[in-house]
């Protein structure tokens, strides 16, 4: 009789264990709010008009205004170049990971999917990354750019927070779409011959 009671209790506890771990707790946890990082940046150009051969500074200050970000990315792309070469030099950089240089034709993530959806890059870019980035922490990414051709020199800048859980997890929120089908802010400098 005592044995039977122990067996009965054991099976009851086991059933409760499976119900809790497979059904109840998973739904509870899935209902908790996900972290929403909110990246933001401000970029300044030292000169809007330069003469060919001269350089200008491009300074970016980025911040995470939302929740803790597992990864905070600032991407700077150069649609008028085929190679970054010695046109772009990094002056200041305080992200936690080394900058990553993306070359033309490289497979890259798209649609804010973090690499699940991919495309091929059409122009070079430099990605600055911090893993993780706490809220309200500023990061700096300053470039010295010396265009080699006259005309309009464009720079695309965007910032993405991962987990990308909302439309607030990228900046800018709208505007021009780049080769990754992600929004960018466009900055231009006129390079006079």
């Amino acid at each position: 009789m005592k044995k039977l009671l122990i067996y009965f209790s054991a099976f009851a506890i086991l059933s409760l264990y499976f119900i809790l771990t497979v059904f109840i707790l998973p739904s509870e946890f899935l209902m908790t709010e996900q972290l929403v990082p909110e990246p933001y940046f401000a970029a300044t150009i030292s000169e809007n008009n330069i003469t060919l051969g001269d350089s200008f500074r491009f300074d970016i200050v980025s911040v995470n205004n939302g929740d803790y970000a597992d990864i905070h990315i600032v991407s700077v792309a150069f649609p008028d170049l085929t190679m970054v070469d010695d046109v772009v030099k990094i002056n200041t950089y305080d992200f936690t990971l080394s900058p990553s240089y993306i070359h033309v034709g490289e497979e890259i993530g798209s649609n804010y999917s973090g690499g699940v959806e991919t495309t091929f890059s059409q122009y070079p870019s430099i990605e600055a990354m911090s893993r993780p980035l706490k809220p309200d922490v500023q990061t700096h990414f300053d470039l010295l750019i010396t265009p080699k051709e006259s005309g309009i020199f464009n720079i695309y800048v965007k910032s993405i927070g991962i987990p990308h859980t909302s439309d607030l997890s990228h900046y800018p929120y709208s505007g021009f779409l780049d080769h990754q089908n992600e929004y960018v802010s466009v900055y231009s400098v006129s390079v006079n011959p």
Partner: protein
Amino acid sequence: MTISTSKPSETFLKSRSQFIFLIGSILTSLGILLVTVGGSWDITNHLLSKPETFSSPPHALMYSGVAVTLFGVVLSFVGWKNLQKFRTSYFLSLKIKLIGIGLLTGAGPFDFVWHSYFGLDGLLSPPHFTLITGMFLCSIGGMVGISRYLKFHNSKPVSKYLLILAVIPVWLSASGIISSLSLPFSSTDFFQFNPEPTFAFIVASLAYPFLISFSLFTVFRLSNYQFGLVSILGGLFLLIYSSTAIVPNFAMLDTVQFYSLNLIPFVIADVFLKLNRSKLSLFFTGGLIGSVFYMVYYPYVMYTYNEVLLGKLVSPSLIYFVYFELIQTVLLYTLIPSIVMGVLAVVVSDKITKKILIN
């Protein structure tokens, strides 16, 4: 009157040789335990992108573990050399430990050379696999040594608790081998060592349930069916895993309560084995233990199943979301195979423990 020509130290070594061998085996197992705990902690730090330095706490734990293991193997050798009896019986343990320590210590310079040529490596790489294989062999050697000593000395029930220390490193290092062959953490700039997702799915679904059941039944049989060891071993595994894989990630802290529930099947298994040791009861318990592998290997096992079932990007704060999103689907696919593997482990552990004890 006879005059002994041997020195006092030699006499001491000879009279205490079995005990020295036991201490060597304990240190070997303890060393591997430290390496596996450090290794699991290190994986978490990598996922969280915490700064990697030569002397980071997980690394320090791993190096100390290797040093303790090395000392344990040397001590085992000294003990074995001076054995007056059971020399052949203890040789198997020593042999396995020597091969293991050879691989373990060789993996260090191999890893250095690998890093010099190919930069950072992932979880699965030739030097890492050498290291994990060495750890596994050393832990097996330690387990055989401790088990045989306890058997030859008809140890008191209290000394059977040493078997926990003997089996837990085997469980953890074998988990390391399975993780290397199933987790997608091995892609680097030079090599793509990530296992093929379907292969990884199969490996995880079969090997983890087998290993849990095998480890628990091995400690149960080696201890001559002592009640409580299954619960303690299972509980210790959960404690180590939660403190190295869950607690360091602040986003997962709340899920410790979910993870701690996994003690229930271990305690129930212990109770079942205490009440009834018929074949049916053993198989039922093995199947039960095998079936909970997805919960016991929370959180990282999710990465393997995510590759095939969801394909989501999983950043550290999303780990438990994806894990819980997958739990029912994974159980649907793996419940029957995991039960079968749990039962199979009961049979295999019976054969292996007999081999360990009958010699």
